[in-house]
C-alpha cells in the first residue's frame, strides 16, 4: 500500500489542496487533542467537551469540513471525493479526529439531501454540519426488528399535523437526542406502502424515553414511547406512504457507514495482535508468538483483515470508474462485523483472565475498555440489518435466489 510519504513525493493534481488542508489544520487543530479518539463516544453520550474540543468542533463546523462533500449552501465543505480523501489523510497525519459525526452525518443528512425539500434542507442540514444537533433513529419496534415493515407506531392525519402514538425500541442515543427521524404507519391496510417518514422533536410533550442497559454495562439506547405527539406536516419527508423507500435508502447509508472506511481504519489502528500476543503470552525460542495455535489464528485474522482492506479499496476504485456501487459492496457489512468481532475475541483470548476485567483494581484502563468493547461489539452483526438479513439480501438481490416460501 502506498504510504503518505510516497504520495508526498509524487506530483499530484491535488497538491495545492493538500497544502491548503495541511496549513488550515496546523492553524486550527489544538495540538492537545492529537491522538485523542474515544471510539465509544458515539454510544456513551455527550461528555463535557473541553475548550479545545469545543474550539475544534466549531472550526471544523464553520469550515464545513466535518461533512466535506456536502454542498456548501447547506453548511458542507463542497469538496470533491478526491479532495475529501486528501483531507482525511491530512487529518490522520495530524492525529486529528473529525469531531462532527453521529447519525445526522452518517444517515440522516445524506438521505435528506436526496429527499428533503429545499426548506427542509436549509432547516435541518446546517446544524448537522456544524455538529450542533443530535439525531436518533426511530425504526425498530418490539415486533418489528429484522421485519421492519411490520411497524405499528401510528400517525393519524389531523389536517395540518399528525398525531403519533406507539413505541419504538433500541433507540440508540435516544436519551441524548434532540430529534428523531422515524418511520411510522399512516395506513393500516398496506404493509410497505402504508409507511411514512417523519421527523419528531424529542423535547415534544408525549415523547418519553427509558434507557436500557446493555450486556457491556452501558446504557446507550432506549425504549421510546410516543403518546399523542404532534408532528407538523412540514416535518414529513417525501410523500405520505413513501416512507419505506426513503427509510430503506437511509439504511443503505447506515450499512455503508457501518462497514466502510471508518471501521477499517480503526482495524489497522491500535496495537497489532501479534505484538499484543508476545507481550501477554511470551515468545518461543525463535521469537515467535509462543502459542502456535493462537499464532496461526492471529495470522488468519490478519490476512482476512488485509483482504478486507483490499476489497474496500477495490470497491472504491470500481465505483469511481463505473459510476455506481460495486457488487463487492454487498458483502462489506458482514465482513466488517466478522472482523471486528474476531479481533475482539482474539484480544480477549490473548489477555486470558486479564482480558475479562470488569472494573476496579488489577486491570489497566485499556483492558477494561476491551472487555466492554468485546461485549458491545456483539451488536455489530445485529444492528443496521443483521448478518442473516444481509445474507438474505445478497442471496436474493445479487444472486437472484428465491425468497423463502
Amino acid at each position, binding site marked *: 500500500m502506498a504510504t503518505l510519504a510516497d504520495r508526498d513525493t509524487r506530483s499530484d493534481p491535488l497538491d495545492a489542496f493538500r497544502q491548503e488542508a495541511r496549513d488550515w489544520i496546523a492553524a486550527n487543530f489544538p495540538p492537545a487533542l492529537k491522538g485523542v479518539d474515544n471510539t465509544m463516544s458515539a454510544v456513551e453520550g455527550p461528555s463535557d467537551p473541553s475548550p479545545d474540543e469545543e474550539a475544534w468542533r466549531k472550526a471544523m463546523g464553520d469550515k464545513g469540513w466535518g461533512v466535506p462533500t456536502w454542498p456548501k449552501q447547506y453548511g458542507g465543505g463542497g469538496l470533491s471525493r478526491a479532495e475529501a480523501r486528501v483531507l482525511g489523510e491530512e487529518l490522520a497525519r495530524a492525529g486529528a479526529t473529525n469531531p462532527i459525526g453521529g447519525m445526522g452525518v452518517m444517515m440522516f443528512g445524506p438521505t435528506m439531501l436526496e429527499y428533503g425539500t429545499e426548506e427542509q434542507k436549509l432547516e435541518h442540514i446546517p446544524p448537522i454540519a456544524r455538529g450542533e444537533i443530535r439525531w436518533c433513529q426511530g425504526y425498530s419496534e418490539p415486533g418489528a426488528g429484522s421485519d421492519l415493515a411490520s411497524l405499528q407506531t401510528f400517525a393519524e392525519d389531523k389536517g395540518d399535523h399528525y398525531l403519533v402514538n406507539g413505541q419504538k425500541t433500541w433507540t440508540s442515543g435516544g436519551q441524548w437526542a434532540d430529534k428523531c427521524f422515524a418511520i411510522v404507519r399512516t395506513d393500516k391496510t398496506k404493509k410497505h406502502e402504508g409507511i411514512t417518514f417523519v421527523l419528531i422533536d424529542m423535547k415534544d410533550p408525549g415523547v418519553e424515553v427509558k434507557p436500557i442497559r446493555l450486556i457491556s454495562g452501558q446504557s446507550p439506547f432506549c425504549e421510546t414511547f410516543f403518546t399523542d405527539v404532534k408532528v407538523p406536516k412540514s416535518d414529513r419527508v417525501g410523500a405520505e406512504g413513501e416512507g419505506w423507500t426513503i427509510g430503506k435508502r437511509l439504511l443503505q447509508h447506515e450499512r455503508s457507514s457501518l462497514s466502510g472506511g471508518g471501521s477499517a481504519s480503526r482495524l489497522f489502528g491500535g496495537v497489532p495482535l501479534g505484538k499484543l500476543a508476545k507481550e501477554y503470552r511470551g515468545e518461543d525460542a525463535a521469537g515467535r508468538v509462543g502459542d502456535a495455535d493462537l499464532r496461526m489464528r492471529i495470522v488468519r485474522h490478519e490476512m482476512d483483515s488485509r483482504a478486507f482492506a483490499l476489497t474496500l479499496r477495490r470497491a472504491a476504485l470500481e465505483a469511481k470508474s463505473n459510476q455506481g456501487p460495486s457488487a463487492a459492496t454487498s458483502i462489506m457489512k458482514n465482513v466488517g462485523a466478522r472482523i471486528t468481532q474476531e479481533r475482539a475475541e482474539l484480544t480477549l483470548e490473548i489477555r*486470558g483472565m486479564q482480558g475479562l476485567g*470488569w472494573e476496579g483494581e*488489577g486491570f489497566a484502563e485499556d483492558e477494561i475498555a476491551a472487555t466492554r468493547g468485546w461485549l458491545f461489539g456483539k451488536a455489530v452483526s*445485529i444492528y443496521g440489518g443483521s448478518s442473516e438479513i444481509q445474507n438474505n439480501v445478497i442471496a436474493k438481490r445479487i444472486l437472484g435466489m428465491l425468497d423463502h416460501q
Partner: protein
Amino acid sequence: MAVLTEEQTMLRDLAREWVDNEAPVTAWRKTRNAGVPAGYDAEVWKTQAEMGWAGVLIPEEHGGVGMGYLSLGLVLEQMGRNLVASPLAATAAATSAILLGGSDAQKAEWLPRIASGEVVATVAFDEGPNFAPGRVATSVTDGKLTGTKAFVAEGDSAQLFIVSATDGVYLVSGDTGVTRSTRAMADARSHAAITFAAAPADKLAGDPDLATKVADRAAVATAAEMLGLAEAAFAITNDYLKTRVQFGQLLSSFQALQHRMAKMFTELELMRSAVEGALEAIDSGRSDVDQAASLAKAIAGDVAKLVSREMVQLHGGIGMTDEHDAGLFLKRSAMLETMWGNAAYHRERFARLNGY
C-alpha cells in the same frame, strides 16, 4: 449419555430438580445485583453441602459419599445449566489434590470439614493471566510459603488453598499470611489475587505429577459445567426461535437458522461424549487421563464459545440487553473457556501428548 448407576441417576435427577426449582438463573441475577463479595449465596452453598455435593468425591470414612468424578460432573452440569453460583467446582478441585496427594493425617484434618460444607477450598496455581502450570515462582522455606497467585476462583471466601510452589504442592489455610485482592470480572463471580507472605504451608506427598493431575481434574470439572451451560444456552435459543415472529413467520421456520441450530446440536453431542469420556477416564483410573482431559476441555471451549455467541446473535437486540440472560451465559462461558487452559492450550497439549 453415559451409562449411569441407579445412584447416579438419582443424584442427577435430584440435582436437576433442585437447580430448576431452587436456583434458576434469576437467583444468580439477584446475587450478582446484590454484589455479594463471595460471589455466591452462602445459604445456597449450605444446602448444596447438605445434599452431599461438597463430599461427592470424598470417601464415606471421611464424611463424604464417595461417588466419583462422573457424579461430580453430573452435578456441575446441572449447575452450569442455570449458572448457579457455587464454590463446588473449586472445592472439588482442591479435594482431588488432597485425595491424590494427602497423607492420612491431612485427609483426616480437611476432608470431613470439606464434605460438611464448613470449609470452602480452592486451587491456586496460576501466577499470571493465562493457565501456565510450568511457570511457578512461589516458594517455601522452613514450612512458610511466599508468592502471589492470580485469579484464584472463590479466592474471596476460600478457607483452604491448594498452592503450587517450586518444589511441590502445598496446603495453606486461609488465616495467616494470606492477603486477598478482589478482582471484579465480567462474570461477576469471585476471582481474587492471593498474596501469601510466609504463610504456614503443609506439603502434599511428592508425586511429581500431582499438579498436572489436579489441573486435569479441574479442567474436566470445568468442562462439565460448560456442558450444562452450553446445553441451556442452546435450549433457550431454540425455544426463542420457536416463539419470535418476524416476516409473519416463526424464526424457527427459516432454513438459515435451522441449519445453524442443527450444527450446534451436532457439536453438543460431541462435547457431551468428550466430557463424559474424560470423567469416566478419571473414575476408572485410566493412564490417558491427560489426553482425555485435553480433548474434553478443547472441545468444550470451542462448543461453549460457539453456542454462547450464537445465543446473543440469534436473540437479536434483546440478547444484547442486560435484562436478558444471554449476556450472563456469554460472560460466564468466556471465563470458563479461559480457566484451566483454553482450547488452544489443550489442542497444543494434545498434540504434544500424541507426538505430533
